[in-house]
């Protein structure tokens, strides 16, 4: 079995699966049970300053986008940071870390944007023996209205400033958790790095309204007839998060900067994908909230099986492996030609590929009177729509056309060489090779 041990910023954990700062890591009871279930680490539910804790709403906090069979695809919440007293949390953290020295325990923090506030709280956190801190610059609701969370995370200068304070008053690793509610994720990541952060983690939740009650005329979850936007997470946000991760991994200013990947990790495969895009580990919230702590067992067995199959002996072996292949559109090979192909043995004749292609794509699927569906190569642009709407996985595949063959759509011979938009004759800005 492959070695899943992870060293992230010098913090060791038996596997790369950490629970993200959220209800699953809200208290000692949860965290102990999470460690017993096999989680490699946790980021404790975000702590605030000493004094009266925040209060949460007493009505519904969550809304969900469901897939078929009520599968949870996206989760929206309007919960705030911890509503438990600081000293209680710190005492619990101290106890848990002592009992689980081999697991990663990170303390998430969100205090006002003043040096004094950080100077006040950080020594207390240091005293718990926790392995590091994560700065919650991401919470998109409630806390941002008070000048914290996303309100800080959207201003790179603030990120840099607060990170500096943390490095000044705290000796262990500082992770900056980024909000996705921003146009260019590279700016806050660079700011964190400039401020001396040891890593970034992303994403926190995305501003969202998941549904509207059409009788009450109120967004949901509705609290006594009113609703507000919440933070969106779960499988639905994974593509957004991975794109942001890849941008940070590719940007020259932040390339190689440690990243903890968060957003929709539900299976071993999601985790492997994040790691190939440059993450040193992953954090999970919604999957645990949907299926319970036990869900980590599949992540562990699956990742380890896949690594064995691929001959990877450690996470390091494939970390960032997909980054060099993540590029800009203009560098994609325009000489590459593929055609869809339907495996008639697997086809169940539902006609979804036909409807999709005929109505909204390139009229490249033919339907016979006896419901046989086949690809018309002379029309197929290889858009992949049919592949994705087909209910049978693997029934339609994209077949690369061999160099030298003629593409019946364009009448041109498939060229085996590489040529992209930058040199394409149709590109007004193309610089012809001289």
């Amino acid at each position, binding site marked *: 079995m492959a070695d899943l041990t992870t060293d992230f910023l010098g913090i060791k954990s038996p596997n790369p699966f950490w629970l993200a700062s959220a209800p699953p890591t809200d208290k000692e009871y949860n965290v102990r049970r999470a460690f017993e279930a096999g989680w490699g680490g946790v980021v404790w539910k975000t702590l605030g300053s000493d004094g009266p804790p925040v209060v949460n709403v007493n009505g519904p906090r969550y809304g969900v986008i469901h897939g078929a069979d009520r599968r949870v695809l996206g989760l929206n919440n309007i919960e705030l940071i911890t509503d438990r007293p600081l000293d209680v949390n710190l005492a619990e953290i101290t106890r848990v870390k002592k009992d689980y020295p081999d697991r990663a325990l990170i303390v998430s923090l969100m205090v006002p944007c003043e040096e004094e506030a950080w100077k006040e709280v950080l020594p207390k956190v240091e005293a718990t023996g926790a392995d590091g801190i994560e700065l919650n610059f991401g919470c998109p609701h409630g806390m941002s209205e008070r000048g914290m969370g996303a309100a800080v995370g959207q201003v790179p200068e603030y990120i840099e400033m607060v990170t500096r304070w943390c490095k000044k008053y705290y000796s262990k690793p500082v992770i900056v958790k980024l909000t996705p509610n921003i146009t260019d994720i590279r700016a806050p990541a660079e700011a964190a790095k400039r401020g001396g952060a040891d890593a970034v983690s992303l994403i926190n939740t995305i501003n969202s309204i998941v549904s509207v009650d059409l009788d009450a005329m109120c967004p949901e979850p509705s609290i006594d007839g009113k609703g507000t936007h919440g933070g969106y997470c779960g499988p639905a946000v994974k593509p957004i998060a991975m794109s942001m991760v890849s941008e940070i991994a590719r940007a020259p200013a932040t390339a190689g900067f440690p990243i903890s990947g968060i957003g929709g990790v539900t299976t071993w495969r999601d985790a492997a994908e994040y790691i190939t895009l440059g993450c040193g580990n992953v954090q999970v919230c919604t999957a645990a909230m949907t299926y319970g702590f036990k*869900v980590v067992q599949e992540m562990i067995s699956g990742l380890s099986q896949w690594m064995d199959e691929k001959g990877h002996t450690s996470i390091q072996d494939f970390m960032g492996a997909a980054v060099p292949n993540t590029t800009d559109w203009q560098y994609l090979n325009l000489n590459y030609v593929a055609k869809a192909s339907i495996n008639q043995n697997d086809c169940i004749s539902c006609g979804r590929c036909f409807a999709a292609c005929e109505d909204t794509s390139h009229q490249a699927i033919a339907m016979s009177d006896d419901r046989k569906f086949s690809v018309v190569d002379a029309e197929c642009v290889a858009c992949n729509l049919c592949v994705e709407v087909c209910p049978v996985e693997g029934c339609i595949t994209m077949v690369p056309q061999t160099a030298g063959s003629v593409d019946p759509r364009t009448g041109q011979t498939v060229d085996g060489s590489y040529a992209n938009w930058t040199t394409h004759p149709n590109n007004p800005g193309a610089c012809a090779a001289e």
Partner: protein
Amino acid sequence: MTSSMTPGIAANRLGQDELANNFADLHMPLQPHEVKVAADRCYFCHDAPCVTACPTDIDIPLFIRQISTGTPEAAAKTIFDMNILGGMCARVCPTEELCEQVCVREVAEGKPVEIGRLQRHATDTLMAQDAHPYKRAASTGKKIAIVGAGPAGLSCGHRLAMLGNEVMIYDANPKAGGLNEYGIAAYKSTNDFAQSEVDWLKSIGGITIENGQGLGRDIHLDQLASDFDAIFLSVGLSGVNALAIDGSEKDGVQDAVKFINDLRQSNDLATIPIGRNVVVIGGGMTAVDAAVQSKLLGAEQVTIAYRRGRDAMSASRYEQDLAASHGVKLLFNAQPNAVLGNGAATAVEFEYTAQNAGKLSGTGEMIQIAADQVFSAIGQTLNADVDLKLEGRKIAITGAGRTSRAGVWAGGDCASGGNDLTVTAVAEGRDAAMDIHETLMGAA
């Protein structure tokens, strides 16, 4: 050319193609798309009822999740960790009375997650790879004798070998596997699966199987006790209850287990003689298997006659329906009175029964059913003369298979308790192995 209509008992009632078709897998392996759809239906329930209902406590939600994330091999490990004969159990478990009966989707929609077939998909995938998935622990220097190479003995032996012990399995039959090899209906275990499973299981190492060794005949308990550190008895129920009615000595009257045994060992199903009219007496899985397989061999009329009502039948409703769907007639509340015929059976006479004050008795009304062949399936019995305390007609056990004699454990059909299922035998063998190992290690 013979056919279903040929009178008396005859071979070759059906052609080879039809026979091959009849004896193919009862449930075909799931195809990739079916696997996806079936696995997708599992809710990953907490403290799942299906797990509680599985006698071997397989973590069903976990293995199904592992299948749906594209790692059937990891799923198979989850299964084998608890049930090393998970491959056979996936084929033979009456899931409709076990895991699938209590699946929340059975309760909610009348359509359970297809646990058994998904289990088969996972185990078949891993077993098709060459490497055995388990390694043995460092040698303990302990030697354990197991008598009976059925599911209980094999499960016990594998677990003990894995824990570092040397295992010697003796079996009276020429082949290992117990009823997996000699009893289970042919359409449940196709392609010689029982033997390939034994070979696969043995490939962990540390297990020797000696066939043709009968306890009380070639080997003896006292001798084993002095040669080995512990003994596990898993001899099953290889004796049969005799049909004690007039005419039961007539030609054509046979024990159902023997008939199935011959069928399972046959290289050419066409050569098996089968009656045009077959009557099977009994109400369990053996009766159903004998009746269905008679039909599949080409018998024209097959009747299962059971002395009590449908609800009391130990074959599940699913098994009853399986029989009915093959054209087997189910006759309830009829007890056999005599086999009729001049030298060879031609009919069985039954008397209808009724419950009177909780007691079953004949009503006096008689019925005759034509029968060239009569299979008796009225229960099996312990067939090993061992000087151990019995409970009823089985070896009395306490805890994880401890018998009345120190150092001797028992499990599977031959031991008290249990429900005479393959999966239960596997669970008992595994648990006894753990207890034997812990006992020997404690004593070391």
